[in-house]
């Protein structure tokens, strides 16, 4: 109702101001983007444009074999008295022939070369061949519609001879069948490379983005909260656990691969440890421990858990050894399929590389969950003073440790001098932060730690996403060299962030009802995710993964420009060489592949939803 009280005059003034403002805005836009209409009208530019467009619409897809034919005539130079009459030609003949204005002349004298019965509108190269055989181009001419050309030129100096010398014209004639051009072959090879590059990077992105996406979903993370003391304990125990896991597994790998065992023993050991792991896990899980009802599982079960963990690690190390050894021998024996053996070896090596990190993360989580139990036990104590004091001590230690870790990470990047002093100050500052927090929060104060994790994960995704893979590839090219491997690493990193964001939004968009229902059954957060969230996100996850593959194919056309391999590499070369007909082939290939990917992903999406 407020609108009515405004005067119509004021209203139209407002509209006018908005319109004028918009006009100014676009004027600035024109001037900033240097809109130049004169250039578009310039005749030279238009000619160039037409030339490029014509080249682009005539892709170099197919080619004929060409046969060069040489039409010759003779001339005597210098003209030594006894005049030379040249080779007789029959003008009624339909075969191409040459005539000269004179057949006997001196070096440096003008001469006119005429050609008849050639192909219409073709470039002709007229050459002079002295007896020593070193060709000399006299000039070039273009034939008219009847296949006739005229070239005014001079007889070259310093090529005197007593014998008649040859003047010839070279023409290329198409011969044989139409065949696939070299450009098309190269393009095919590179587009296959591009597809696999995109496939690998999408797969890696998928593997990492899948678990991370849950940490970036607000609706799940909101539920994650824990008491203040547990957070302090986790902050202390997590890095310790990570370090322990990493170091132990690194030592184990070194000692096992140091044994230089034969592949057979490795394989047998691998199977034995798989069996052991299976038995231990079955023993542990079949004990049907009902959560919460008998918490005291005793020393035996803990021992069994540790044994199971070690046996899993030994199994993985042996497995990677088996892969490496088997891959090596396969690569030698398979011949044309050696790439399969190399792949097996690479998988083994990747496993060996990832294992310490995985173990670090696993151990940090296990030890971290121990923190939860410890804090529960402390909180069960009666004395409020005792709890407060313990809580403050823990939080001081936790935040001092956290700050020291962060500062040392910074030190790696910035290489500070006087690190010892900086460490002391950082420790004190971190301790003070911990002291203040410990004083402010009650030991059992429930902190929404999930929101913190959500914020950190989201920020990492956003930062990674904002760095285009074109920029990332420059860094990776330095690391692993120019080629498709650098490209796939760059795309993979970007894909993790992009997919992570898209996935997490799908998690946020799920219908909350089933989640609520599963929560009401007494399921914990992990179970809620497995039973209520994952079934709902499978279709969108597949759709987004396919979409991302398609996007990566398009992206990999660009990262080739920066040395990331794939079809972009070829495209850039051809554009730089002004070879637009070849570039056109690559553009068509990209368009075809992207459309095919689109139809394919549409089909798969329909099948799955």
């Amino acid at each position, binding site marked *: 109702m407020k609108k009515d009280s405004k005067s119509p005059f004021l209203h139209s003034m407002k509209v006018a101001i908005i319109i004028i403002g918009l006009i100014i805005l676009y004027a600035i836009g024109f001037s900033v983007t240097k809109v130049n209409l004169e250039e578009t009208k310039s005749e030279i530019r238009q000619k160039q444009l037409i030339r490029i467009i014509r080249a682009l619409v005539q892709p170099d897809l197919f080619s004929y074999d060409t046969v060069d034919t040489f039409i010759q005539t003779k001339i005597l130079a210098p003209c030594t008295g006894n005049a030379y009459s040249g080779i007789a030609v029959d003008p009624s003949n339909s075969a191409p022939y040459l005539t000269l204005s004179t057949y006997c002349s001196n070096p440096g004298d003008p001469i006119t070369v005429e050609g008849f019965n050639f192909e219409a509108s073709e470039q002709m190269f007229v050459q002079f061949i002295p007896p020593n055989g070193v060709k000399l181009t006299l000039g070039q001419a273009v034939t008219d519609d009847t296949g006739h050309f005229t070239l005014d030129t001079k007889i070259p100096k310093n090529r005197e001879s007593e014998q008649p010398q040859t003047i010839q014209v070279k023409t290329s004639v198409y011969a044989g069948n139409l065949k696939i051009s070299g450009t098309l072959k190269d393009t095919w090879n590179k587009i296959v490379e591009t597809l696999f590059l995109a496939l690998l990077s999408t797969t890696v992105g998928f593997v990492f983005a899948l678990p991370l996406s849950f940490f970036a979903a607000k609706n799940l993370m909101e*539920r994650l*909260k824990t*008491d203040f003391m547990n957070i302090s304990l986790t902050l202390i125990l997590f890095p310790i656990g990570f370090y322990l896991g990493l170091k132990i597994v690194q030592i184990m790998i070194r000692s096992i691969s140091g044994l230089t065992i034969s592949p057979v023993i490795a394989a047998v050991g691998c199977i034995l440890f798989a069996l052991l792991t299976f038995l231990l896990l079955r023993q542990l*899980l079949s004990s*049907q*421990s*009902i*959560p*919460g*009802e008998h918490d005291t599982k005793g020393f035996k079960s803990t021992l069994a858990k540790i044994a199971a963990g070690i046996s899993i690690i030994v199994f993985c190390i042996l497995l990677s050894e088996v892969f490496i050894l088997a891959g090596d021998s396969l690569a030698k024996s398979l011949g044309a399929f050696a790439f399969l053996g190399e792949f097996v070896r690479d998988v083994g090596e990747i496993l060996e590389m990832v294992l310490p990190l995985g173990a670090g993360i696993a151990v940090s989580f296990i030890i971290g969950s121990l923190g939860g139990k410890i804090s529960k036990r402390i909180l069960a104590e009666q004395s409020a003073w005792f709890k407060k004091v313990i809580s403050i001590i823990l939080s001081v230690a936790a935040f001092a440790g956290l700050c020291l870790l962060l500062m040392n990470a910074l030190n790696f990047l910035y290489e500070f001098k006087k690190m010892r002093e900086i460490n002391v100050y950082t420790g004190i500052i971190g301790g003070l932060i911990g002291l203040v927090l410990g004083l402010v929060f009650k030991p*059992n104060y*429930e902190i929404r730690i999930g929101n913190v994790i959500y914020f950190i994960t989201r920020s990492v995704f956003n930062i990674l996403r904002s760095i285009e893979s074109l920029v990332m590839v420059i860094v990776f090219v330095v690391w692993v060299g120019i080629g498709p491997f650098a490209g796939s690493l760059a795309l993979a990193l970007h894909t993790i962030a992009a997919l992570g964001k898209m996935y997490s939004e799908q998690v946020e968009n799920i219908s909350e*009802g*089933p989640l*609520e*229902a*599963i*929560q*009401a*059954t*007494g*399921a*914990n957060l*992990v*179970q809620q995710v*497995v*039973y*209520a969230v994952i*079934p*709902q996100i*499978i*279709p969108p996850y597949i759709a987004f993964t396919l979409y991302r593959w398609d996007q990566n194919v398009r992206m990999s056309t660009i990262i080739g420009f920066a040395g990331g391999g794939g079809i972009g590499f070829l495209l850039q070369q051809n554009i730089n060489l002004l070879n637009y007909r070849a570039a056109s082939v690559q553009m068509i290939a990209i368009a075809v592949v992207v459309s095919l990917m689109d139809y394919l992903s549409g089909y798969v999406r329909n099948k799955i939803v």
Partner: protein
Amino acid sequence: MLEIKELSKIYTGGTQALKEISFNVPKGQFLAVIGLSGSGKSTLLRCINRLIEPTKGQIIWNGIDLAALPENEMRLYRRKIGMVFQSFNLVLRSSVLTNVLSGRLGYINPAWSFLNRFSKQDYLDAMKQLERVGIADKANQRADELSGGQQQRVSIARAMMQNPEIMLADEPVASLDPVLAHSIMQYLDKINKEFGVTVICSLHFLDLVHRYADRVVALNDGYVVFDGVPSEINDVKFKEIYGRDAERVG
């Protein structure tokens, strides 16, 4: 015995859904909660199993204050409180059997959940529950292939897998036709009479209340405005519950 003591809920944004509500529910009672939409029925039910965190007050069940428990302990008590919802809340892309089995999640080692494994006994129990609600033949179909009434039966089977002592039902029949509504209410009635499960059920239709409930608690704007047996709801009481302009239907 479930005791609700001065329970309040203020949502972020300031809406006060419950205003110091107090009442007791004896074991084995069929309690109907009635009131207009937005009167706080759903909030009340969800506060009892802490799907929604109460702002103030106590929920004392068998001597333990559920409102004060930390989340990881609360989940152990939630196992004994089944819940069915107006919109059934099945996981539509999972099979009926998986939906029913998920009622056991609170009782199994969470590590199994990654493998979607349940014990043989759980499978047998799940089939028994499905037989009890008459749709054992649909066990391997996807939940979204079922009709509304069938879906609600699956959700009852799921809640029964928890071996509950309390069953919360949040307008369980509001999205079903009258015939189906009665059949669903009969299942709840059976659970109440045969297994002695306390049922707390929010309802819209008074004829259902008269037929099935032992007792009625009526909410209006977050207050308890009526607490008694269904037959006590006369026209005066009705206007108090539903407002002056309301008219009785059904």
